């Protein structure tokens, strides 16, 4: 059985509101699978259904062959969970929390001790295990929760926004720790994130989720290829008809494969080649358009999101504010 997670038409409604809408996917053994999407997309709700915390409204999901609704205890025995929000006892030390967890899952004393050393090592927590969590920094506490997720030798570990609130260094560390854990333990990892870079760096395959639905699912590389080979985003001074005219005009350029129009930028999908930016500026000049900003880059998962949903992930997060922060080149 190579598909450890099998999801079929999974749906969750809260009253009239559909938080997860008929999603399908499978995750193979040993994979790191990521859910990427803006806040409110339905990532946590999906994870909660897969970890038996919420009952699906309809559809089904199986973890290691066990149905999440009908065989929830069996599912629980096979998974480790790192919740989005805090879930440890702050008054206890990291070791006490881990030990408590292992006992709840019926691990023997020698087994607990052996595994404890292993996860402490894995998440670089040695030396901190006897300190009460409440006096440790947030990032360290979080790492104890991740460690706990691996404690009972689960087949699948679910991590809901594992690096939320981390600085860049801590984030990179945790990513590497998760990768090492996957290699050493051979476990399947399923995580959610709204950091595009996290999915890009960590995941073998990514499901892009927006407004309760999966809009695309593939390896990060294939997803990026689907967008195009080279991207140029342009803003021009005028709007309205002039903007429409500009869009019509650029389509005449033979290296422009596709033009996508967004709230205040125009995205050109270009055949790779030298001097595209210069060409475009000359071209605009020749036809009397004023380019106010231009930037060329290879597609990122950010562009993938834009491509499939028509919004940037940040636009989707700040839905309703109408603000579109400028693209920052090279931002993580």
């Amino acid at each position: 059985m190579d598909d450890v997670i099998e999801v079929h038409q999974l749906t969750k409604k809260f009253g009239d509101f559909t938080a997860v809408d008929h999603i399908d996917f499978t995750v193979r053994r040993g994979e790191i699978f990521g859910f990427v999407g803006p806040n409110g997309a339905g990532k946590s709700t999906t994870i909660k259904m897969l970890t038996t915390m919420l009952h699906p409204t309809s559809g089904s999901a199986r973890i290691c062959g066990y149905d999440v609704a009908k065989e929830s205890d069996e599912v629980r025995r096979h998974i480790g969970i790192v919740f989005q929000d805090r879930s440890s006892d702050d008054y206890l030390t990291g070791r006490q929390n881990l030990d408590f967890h292992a006992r709840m899952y019926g691990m023997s004393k020698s087994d607990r001790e052996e595994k404890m050393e292993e996860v402490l090592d894995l998440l670089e927590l040695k030396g901190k295990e006897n300190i009460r969590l409440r006096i440790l920094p947030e990032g360290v506490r979080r790492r104890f929760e991740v460690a706990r997720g691996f404690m009972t030798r689960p087949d699948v570990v679910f991590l809901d926004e594992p690096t939320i609130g981390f600085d860049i260094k801590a984030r990179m560390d945790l990513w590497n720790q998760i990768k090492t854990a996957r290699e050493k333990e051979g476990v399947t990892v399923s995580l959610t994130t709204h950091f595009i870079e996290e999915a890009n760096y960590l995941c073998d395959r990514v499901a892009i989720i927006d407004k309760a639905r999966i809009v695309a699912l593939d390896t990060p590389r294939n997803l990026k290829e689907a967008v195009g080979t080279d991207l140029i985003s342009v803003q021009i001074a005028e709007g309205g008809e002039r903007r429409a005219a500009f869009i019509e005009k650029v389509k005449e350029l033979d290296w422009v494969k596709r033009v996508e129009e967004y709230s205040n930028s125009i995205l050109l999908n270009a055949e790779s080649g030298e001097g595209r930016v210069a060409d475009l500026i000359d071209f605009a000049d020749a036809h009397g358009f004023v380019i106010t900003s231009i930037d060329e880059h290879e597609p990122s998962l950010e562009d993938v999101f834009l491509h499939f949903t028509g919004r940037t992930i940040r636009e989707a997060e700040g839905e309703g504010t109408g603000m579109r922060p400028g693209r920052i080149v090279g931002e993580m």
Partner: protein
Amino acid sequence: METKTVKQKPLFEGEPIYSMWLRELLRFIAMPSRILATFASPFTWLVLLGVPLSQVFPTGDIQSMFGGLTFFAFIVPGVLSMGLLFGGTNSGVTVLWDKEFGFLKEVMVAPVRRTSLMIGRSLGALTIALIQAVVTIAVALVLGIWLGFRIISIAGFILAVCFMIITFFAFVGFGLTLGAMIEETEGFMTIIRMIEFPMFFLSGALLPLNMIEGIPVLYQLQFINPLTYGVDGIRGFLTGANFLPLWLDITVIVAFALLFLFLGAYKFSRMEVD
């Protein structure tokens, strides 16, 4: 195709119950203010209330009012019952705390019966309450040398402890039910105190039940207060000076315990984790 083995959860889950019990004690040890409060409270009530008021109610004829006990001996069971009321209710209610701080999720997704979680948790709180009770009785026995408190028999003491355990669980169930019903941590403790204190004052813990016979409503309220039967039972077993028949005390407390433990367990089992 792999064959699936569906393991049944055992009826008695020793390890999870022990883990929950251990966690309660570790938490207790981790909070010095709680340790202090647990040990200081018997002293506060017995020394600061019991000793001075003993002077107001001198020994002699007036003792018949307290069922033949000195005032000091009279309030010892009252102080014990207060520990059970507060300790038990709190233990039930603090499930809400776990929910607020996210820990409930951690235990609720473990492949363990919810009743085991509840039992382990309550046993932890019971252990602490019993330690407090033992300290209270020890302090009372020492002061009792001068103020006239003693335990009628070893059997009485053992029966009193058993009765205290049932009373404790009755209030665990009560707190659990309240906690599950209110489901709102904001100002929650205030509401609990507003329920606990009237229960304590109208239970015959500090004054004989019939002393307020002339005050309508308040007098009757005492008899619908389950703590009244708890106090009377403990007093009966420890000192032999019960006002109500012991069978009635036992029946009411057992019924109250069963009712609320059942209700609380039901509410807890249906509680949404998220």
